[in-house]
């Protein structure tokens, strides 16, 4: 097939600020129009899957914090759910821990969407939204710091529960946040939703229809903006999502604007979910009472021989799930984040595969960019919300 004659071939990225760090696009232009595009990725490939195969199940967790570094808790949650399924202890994880997991996962979703909103708006020329979004995101990071000690890499989830119970200060500040945050979403919407510049930059740009999206395996807000109501939380509920009431926002145009609307609505739904969690969360332990899975409390380790032996056993020999293979997924901020683990009965995963939503969502980009203008590229990349750490792993 003869290729169309091009006027110019340009490199966009990897250092272009709107290419999310390390995404390189090779664009073939005819005038201002894109006639061919190619993506080059892999600049931050760290071999996370290989690394995971050399670590014990408990030691793998911090590695996954760093895969999608703006929604660490979701990554951790996906992994611990998969390991719990492999061990067959999913039902025995205490209820309070399940609620805390949902609270943290939803806070992560809000913080990730805020980062997306701020940077996406900035890329399209709206500076104030960036400052506002980061102001609110900071509050969430403070909450993370209060409950888990870390702001970005929280390390909060554990196989069989969570690291700590919520402190009274955390719960108080979380309630405060839930009170004022919905107003802030309205504020962002006042600035953008009917803004004429925003509309002309986003409406009808980067359209992906429902069939195409499903065929390319796209998930998350991009799929829901195309008219498909697939959300892991509703289709295959994990933790306590089946006990909570929330809507899955679905729009039908599949363009950049609808992806923006889906994410804004998702933040409102996340607030609704967290409020219900705070109402329904029972008192009780937050870690499974099983010495083969969870380290015993420090008082027991220091004061009893049994506690000391259990601690030693778990640290030295680790968890040994039965041979078999499982796939577990969570609805991360970018879509379905799945973990496929093959166990050979040893203390390390034989094969651990992350199904990264960003990688699979951006595979369509070379097709999608064709026929658009150079200025639309920024809008389209932003709307797919790729996190390059997760793409490259």
């Amino acid at each position, binding site marked *: 097939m003869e290729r169309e004659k091009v006027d110019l071939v340009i490199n966009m990225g990897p250092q272009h600020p709107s290419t999310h760090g390390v995404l390189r696009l090779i664009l073939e232009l005819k005038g201002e129009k894109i006639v061919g595009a190619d993506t080059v990725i*892999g600049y931050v490939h760290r071999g996370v899957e290989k690394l995971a195969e050399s670590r014990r199940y408990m030691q793998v967790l911090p590695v996954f914090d760093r895969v999608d570094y703006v929604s660490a808790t979701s990554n951790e949650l996906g992994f611990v759910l998969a390991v719990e*399924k*492999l061990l*067959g202890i999913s039902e025995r994880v205490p209820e309070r821990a399940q609620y805390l997991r949902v609270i943290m996962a939803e806070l992560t979703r809000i913080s990730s969407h805020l980062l997306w909103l701020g940077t996406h708006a900035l890329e399209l020329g709206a500076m104030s939204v960036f400052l506002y979004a980061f102001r609110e995101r900071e509050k969430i990071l403070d909450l993370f710091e209060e409950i888990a000690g870390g702001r970005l890499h929280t390390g909060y989830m554990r196989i069989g529960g969570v690291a700590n119970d919520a402190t009274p200060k955390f719960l108080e500040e979380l309630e405060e946040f839930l009170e004022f945050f919905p107003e802030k979403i309205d504020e962002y919407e006042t600035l953008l939703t009917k803004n004429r510049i925003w509309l002309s930059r986003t409406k009808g740009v980067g359209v992906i229809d429902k069939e195409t999206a499903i065929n390319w395996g796209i998930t998350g807000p991009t799929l829901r903006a195309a008219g498909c109501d697939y959300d892991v939380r509703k289709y295959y509920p994990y933790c306590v999502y089946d006990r909570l009431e929330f809507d899955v926002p679905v729009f039908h145009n599949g363009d950049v604007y609808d992806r923006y609307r889906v994410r804004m609505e998702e933040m409102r739904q996340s607030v609704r979910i967290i409020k219900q969690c705070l109402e329904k969360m029972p008192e009780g332990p937050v870690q499974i009472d099983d010495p083969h899975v969870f380290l015993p409390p420090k008082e027991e380790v220091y004061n009893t021989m049994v506690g000391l032996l259990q601690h030693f056993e778990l640290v030295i020999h680790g968890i040994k799930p039965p041979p078999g*293979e499982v796939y577990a997924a969570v609805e991360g901020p970018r879509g379905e984040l799945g973990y496929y683990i093959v166990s050979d009965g040893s203390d390390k995963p034989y094969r651990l595969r992350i199904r990264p939503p960003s*990688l*699979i969502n951006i*595979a369509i980009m070379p097709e999608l960019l064709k026929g658009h203008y150079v200025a639309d590229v920024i809008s389209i990349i932003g709307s797919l919300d790729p996190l390059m750490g997760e793409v490259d792993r």
Partner: protein
Amino acid sequence: MRYVAPELVEKLKRTFPEAIESVEEFRGEVTVTVKKEFLLEFMRFLKVDKDFQMDMLVDVTAVDYPENEPRFVVVYHLRSLSKRHNLRVKCWAEGEEVPSVVDIWKTAEWTEREVYEMFGVRFTGRKLRKLLLPQKYPYFPLRKDFPLEGYEEPCEVWDWE
């Protein structure tokens, strides 16, 4: 995560008596291992059959068993959004090669390329280019015999054109 019902597994066994090597169930997840020569036919059936309607290919990956012959097994995670069920299909890559399913599901476009560069499993019917690593990189890092720290001898891998 809900997997296909036992009666549907029976239907698969009836429809493809020669193609299916084994059916396994673990923790409620169903895995069907298919012979390589029947893979494409089997996958097309799963996509169009009204009881299955596997319209989404969630992921493609592979597992390396160095002691085994053939060595690699390619793993496909399939899902039906309308039926809300899942199925895992496996295919042993004899001669380190399996047919490409990119014509059935576009998800395979990048995931097959990743399997190729990480394991060296080729997918017939398409030209494979590396995705995450330099094009000239000679090793396959996710193979079990690839050392964790990588090989020490330098190799000219960067192509700056």
